[in-house]
């Protein structure tokens, strides 16, 4: 995470949130992306009108908008250009979107993480469009001999109502290009009520290429002389490659070279292993089947998930070091008339992007070029520069389309591998991970263990909370993505609580997985809250609303903190839409949960059916979001629907286990994804608030798990405290 933090804070517009453990919970200090790259005052182009780094208008009127961040399926390549087009008053049907070059000195952070794409770029995109529109209006006024105030832009042309004349943007391009570019903060922005495009449903800009198979993902790249490499790593994490059957491998069809890579592992070095470079990807994959490596396992991990569960239980029976507290939890608990205790366990999980990890690199004349679907290529460039001793200025990155991210592509292992091989061998190399390699060498969402104790007072109100969080850390420091935010609901609204934290050592690599710090912990917290409201004999919605109290920002003056009124708003909306309190059929249950992260307030309500054979059907899931203004309704709903399915499969089906330092799952037969049959009816509701728009890639996911788990309890009376549900016998 350091590299992200560095590259962001260097620009001074972004910092890590207070819950460092929450990983990519990036809080924006000021509005993001850097402005409009070029200096104001210069002429805006020659043949085309190019007022800034985000758009150009050709003389035929074609508008091209550049999308600065990587597209991994989150829809940013549609959403941000929509903002530019809105302020530009462009006709969307006449807009093409291109991936911007990778140049963080121009565009600021070009990554996908922490649901920051929309909130950190919204204002810059607006101004990029508004600057161009202002200049086009100015050009039209000159052309028409009219006052600027009498001209207005609409749907790709400037209209002069008094004379009834209008000029298309294409016809204004040359004239506008000769004008001086006004400063970004001097131009006027539209008010929300003037929006024509934002808030509507706009299909993804690459939809046609996707459905015709024409879209080029990283793994589809072709170039002259390209070789294909697989990079085989030790099954046991941390083991070293000592020797292998090189001669045999190099005699296999198409194999050009096989080499032992020392590597030390970690984020800044290669993992030890063997690389096989061949003429085709299939030949490389096939050759790897014949590989026999002698591993030096003395340094390898010995982690065992089963042993961790036992150790964590033993640790939990005692108090741990206090990590975070407010008030006096002991006294509060002593005053309780009823006390509940429960232990929750969630497993490690993998990212399993549909497109496995890959990267292409070419090295010639001291310059390195990379083609990557990375979510954070800047960090990869830093690592390459350090490890392979090459000046960052000599590294060019091309952002190619990625088949899914979910946090996996924040770790740049394939960038390092491809760069190393291209530089070592002097040929362009495409590094490709097989599914088995992708699964066995992921950077996993860490499992965790929570032992909770909470008290209820005579009125059935939550009066005290103690939590022992057993997580992973080495040398006293949490491993990546193994932390727990200090501002999570309900802790943020409880007067007296204490969170203790103990660390188990870990050799298995970990990383950020969609909504890190929240994706599993929300299940723990919101399930236990439901245990409490149930024990108190109270309605869960009323219990939550009471906890939230009066509408207020929890961190006064911080518009990015939880607002209890917005929280209550989405909880009421979800309850209303699911028919909370209404009649149920036999075997049916309803559950509800709320979570706040990534600046998004989201409540989820679920309706499930469980039969006597423990066959579970999640029938309906209602998601109520307050993420401020919604930019692309279709894209936003896609993120919510995806979050529901992702949460559902993480709750129900998925776990990564390891014994003796080796992951036990290898492909989709033992690490399943949800099928269409398991998909509930999903309904999305957005509170139409005027708050600044915030991201939606992550915040809808965390409350999905506890909402379904709470509904399951409501349906059959079984409280599952260890995931996934299949381990408790719940069938699909």
């Amino acid at each position: 995470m350091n590299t992200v933090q560095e590259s962001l804070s260097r620009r001074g517009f972004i910092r890590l949130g207070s819950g460092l453990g929450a990983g990519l919970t990036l809080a924006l200090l000021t509005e993001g992306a850097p402005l409009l790259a070029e200096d104001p005052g210069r002429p805006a182009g020659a043949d085309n009108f190019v007022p800034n780094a985000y758009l150009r208008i050709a003389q035929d009127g074609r508008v091209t908008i550049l999308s600065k961040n990587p597209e991994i399926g989150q829809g940013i390549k549609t959403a941000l250009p929509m903002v530019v087009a809105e302020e530009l008053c462009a006709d969307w049907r006449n807009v093409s979107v291109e991936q911007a070059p990778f140049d963080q000195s121009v565009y600021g952070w070009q990554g996908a993480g922490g649901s920051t794409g929309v909130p950190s770029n919204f204002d810059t995109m607006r101004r990029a469009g508004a600057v161009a529109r202002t200049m086009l209006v100015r050009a039209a006024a000159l052309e028409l001999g009219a006052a600027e105030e009498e001209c207005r832009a609409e749907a790709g042309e400037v209209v002069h109502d008094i004379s009834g004349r209008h000029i298309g943007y294409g016809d204004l391009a040359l004239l506008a290009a000769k004008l001086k570019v006004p400063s970004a903060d001097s131009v006027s922005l539209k008010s929300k009520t003037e929006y024509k495009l934002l808030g509507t449903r706009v299909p993804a800009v690459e939809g046609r290429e996707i459905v015709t198979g024409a879209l080029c993902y990283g793994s589809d790249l072709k170039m002259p002389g390209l070789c294909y490499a697989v990079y085989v790593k030790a099954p046991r994490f941390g083991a070293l490659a000592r020797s292998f059957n090189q001669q045999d491998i190099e005699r296999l069809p198409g194999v050009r070279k096989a080499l032992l890579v020392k590597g030390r592992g970690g984020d800044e070095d290669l993992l030890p292993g063997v690389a096989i470079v061949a003429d085709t990807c299939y030949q490389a994959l096939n050759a790897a089947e014949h590989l026999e490596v002698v591993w030096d396992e003395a340094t390898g991990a010995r982690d065992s998930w089963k042993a961790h569960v036992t150790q964590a239980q033993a640790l939990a029976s005692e108090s741990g070091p206090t990590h975070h507290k407010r008030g006096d939890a002991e006294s509060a608990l002593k005053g309780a008339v009823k006390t509940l205790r429960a232990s929750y366990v969630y497993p490690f999980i993998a990212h399993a992007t549909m497109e496995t990890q890959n990267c292409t690199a070419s090295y010639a004349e001291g310059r390195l070029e990379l083609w990557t679907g990375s979510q954070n290529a800047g960090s990869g460039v830093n690592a390459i520069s350090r490890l392979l001793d090459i000046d960052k200025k000599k590294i060019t990155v091309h952002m190619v389309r990625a088949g899914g991210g979910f946090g996996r592509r924040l770790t740049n292992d394939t960038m390092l591998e491809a760069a190393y091989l291209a530089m070592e061998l002097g040929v362009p190399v495409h590094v490709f991970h097989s599914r088995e390699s992708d699964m066995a060498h992921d950077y996993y969402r860490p499992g965790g263990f929570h032992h909770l104790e909470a008290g209820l007072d005579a009125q059935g109100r939550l009066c005290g909370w103690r939590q022992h969080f057993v997580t992973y850390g080495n040398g006293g420091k949490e491993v990546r993505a193994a932390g727990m935010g200090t501002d999570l609901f309900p802790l943020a609204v409880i007067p007296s609580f204490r969170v203790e934290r103990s660390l188990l050592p870990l050799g298995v690599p970990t990383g950020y997985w969609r909504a890190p710090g929240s994706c599993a912990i929300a299940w723990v917290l919101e399930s236990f809250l439901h245990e409490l409201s149930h024990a108190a004999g109270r309605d869960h919605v009323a219990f939550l609303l009471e906890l939230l109290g009066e509408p207020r920002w929890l961190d006064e003056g911080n518009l990015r903190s939880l607002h209890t009124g917005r929280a209550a708003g989405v909880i009421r909306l979800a309850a209303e839409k699911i028919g909370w309190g209404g009649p149920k059929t036999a075997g049916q249950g309803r559950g509800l949960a709320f979570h706040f992260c990534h600046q998004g307030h989201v409540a989820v309500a679920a309706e499930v059916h469980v039969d006597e054979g423990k066959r579970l059907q999640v029938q309906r899931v209602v998601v109520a979001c307050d993420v401020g203004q919604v930019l692309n309704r279709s894209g936003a709903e896609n993120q919510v629907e995806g979050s529901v399915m992702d949460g559902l499969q993480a709750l129900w089906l998925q776990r990564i286990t390891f014994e003796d330092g080796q992951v036990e799952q290898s492909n989709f037969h033992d690490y399943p994804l949800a099928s269409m049959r398991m998909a509930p009816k999903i309904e999305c509701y957005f509170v139409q608030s005027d708050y600044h728009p915030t991201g939606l890639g992550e915040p809808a996911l965390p409350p999905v798990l506890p909402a379904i788990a709470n509904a399951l309890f409501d349906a059959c009376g079984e409280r599952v405290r260890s995931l996934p549900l299949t381990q408790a016998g719940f069938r699909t």
Partner: protein
Amino acid sequence: MPWNGLPDLKADSFGLGWDCHSHQAWQTGHFTPIPMASFLLHVNGRDHSVTDVAADTPLLWILREQLALTGTKYGCGMEMCGSCTVHVDGRAVRACNLEVAQAVGKRIVTIEGLAGKDGGLHPLQEAWLEHDVAQCGFCQPGQLMQAAALLAANPNPSDDEICRAMEGNLCRCGTQTRILAAIHSAATKLGTKGGAA
């Protein structure tokens, strides 16, 4: 293959059968013999000759690497995800586990051949766009090919029939509900037009 001094193995005939070459690797090493051969494949209405490939190479890699038809995706390599779904004589088949030798003489259609020859999209592709189905999009070519085979056999499938047909096509992004809706839309449109895909 200059790097390792292997003889340059050239196939000398197309064919429906194998044209085997001896190979140093299995003369000197302990590996199973890998016959190299040439094949004539019928893909998207055209004949393609594929030369000098191992006969057990999965069709997936032939499509992607020899014919540059990269719309067919690798997802798992063991028929678990459906990303590599193509049509072989009208049936939806996982190309990752179909040896090229077995595809000879068959009518193969990939995602690149799903649209009409006039460039008009298949009704399923249109429905996919109307419903803005894709997120990352990587699995969608396989989903579309699976759905197209379903509609060809069953022009008006029920929810249950769609779920059964699509069971083996995984989507990591969670587009299942939109896929279901899009298949229904396309079926309706096909019904209106009075014919199946």
